[in-house]
């Protein structure tokens, strides 16, 4: 929760009305950052060029669509958000925004983003965006989140679609490259969140949300982190041998995968006693590495595309 959001909430309390900042917070701006970045990479690495203005509108639509699904998520989860400390200050539980208002904003922005993306680009991109919003709001929020400890595994698909949408904006199709970019985020989400869950004292249990750490214990969570990390490495390296990969990407990918795999292995070999003894140092470190991991891979894909465009990968015989 940022200072700006706190200030707007204080203002809302004084005036009894939501301010613009409250509506902005409703759209989960932090999640939007990841969505915008990965969608932009998907768009830029595609073999077909897009008019810059259409590209800008497409990224805007994807960001607004992500924000809309965030608003729908907050509308549906208002009851549990008010129970958990981390989410109690969100616009709905804090009273700044009425639930019905959030629902209206979520549905309205969803329709706006999908229709505009269709008009600006193509039906496939708009359809993928519509499915992503549906997946996050209905499949994840309404169905999986409260029913299975694998919630973030399947729900992670919603966060994995943006590069695929960006690729579809440019090419109007789905290909192995976009599927692997999807797979990279999809396989990365579980170890990333479970590493966080190992060191953050959450109150998901009080809210009735089955997180793996609470339903199956921390030892099982450690096993799962390593188990998901292995296929993640395969997907990340496979991407290097597609048309969007290259020597630079592979170099970065190998380094990042060794780094992250080592972190996941270290987590797997530890006991809860070890973890408590050093205040979850390894778990915290691996969580931080996971952030570098994702941004590093997508950043490397973008740099690789720049190098290729300027003919700088020919030296490696690529």
């Amino acid at each position, binding site marked *: 929760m940022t200072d700006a959001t706190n200030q707007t909430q204080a203002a809302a309390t004084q005036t009894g009305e939501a301010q613009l900042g409250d509506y902005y917070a409703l759209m989960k701006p932090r999640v939007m950052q990841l969505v915008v970045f990965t969608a932009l990479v998907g768009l830029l690495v595609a073999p077909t060029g897009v008019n810059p*203005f259409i590209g800008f509108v497409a990224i805007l639509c994807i960001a607004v669509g992500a924000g809309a699904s965030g608003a729908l998520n907050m509308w549906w989860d208002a009851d549990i958000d008010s129970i958990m400390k981390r989410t109690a200050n969100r616009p709905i539980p804090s009273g700044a925004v009425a639930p019905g208002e959030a629902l209206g904003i979520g549905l309205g922005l969803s329709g706006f983003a999908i229709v505009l993306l269709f008009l600006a680009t193509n039906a496939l991109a708009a359809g993928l965006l519509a499915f992503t919003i549906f997946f996050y709001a209905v499949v994840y929020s309404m169905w999986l989140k409260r029913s299975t400890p694998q919630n973030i595994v399947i729900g992670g698909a919603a966060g994995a679609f943006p590069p695929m949408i960006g690729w579809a904006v440019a090419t109007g199709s789905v290909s192995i490259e976009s599927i692997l970019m999807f797979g990279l985020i999809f396989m990365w989400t579980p170890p990333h969140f479970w590493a966080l869950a190992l060191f953050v004292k959450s109150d998901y249990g009080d809210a009735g949300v089955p997180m793996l750490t609470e339903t199956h214990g921390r030892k099982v969570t450690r096993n799962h982190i390593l188990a998901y990390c292995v296929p993640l490495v395969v997907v990340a390296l496979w991407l290097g041998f597609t048309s969007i990969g290259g020597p630079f990407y592979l170099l970065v990918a190998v380094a990042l995968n060794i780094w992250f795999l080592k972190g996941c292995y270290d987590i797997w070999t530890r006991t809860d006693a070890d973890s408590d003894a050093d205040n979850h140092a390894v778990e915290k470190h691996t969580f931080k590495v996971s952030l570098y991991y994702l941004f590093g891979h997508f950043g490397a894909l973008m740099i690789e595309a720049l190098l290729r465009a300027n003919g700088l990968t020919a030296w490696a015989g690529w």
Partner: protein
Amino acid sequence: MAIKVEHEIHTRRKGRNTGVFLLLLGMIGIVFGLTVVKVLGLTDIRQMEKFDHVARPALEPGALEAAERRAAEIAAEAEANQ
């Protein structure tokens, strides 16, 4: 008569109203920009008529070429008959 604040809601909602105004302005900019980009991107200016949402048989693929071929045939027949 000068416009003046008549109710406290004008000051209370100033921020929201400014935000809505800017969003609408942005929306106009997006629609205008998309229109310019789409129209300038047309490879054949006759395609602009497609935005009328009316069936234009003359714009179907190959229609112009077929019309040109037919015109050439008619011209050839007329020349042969002379």
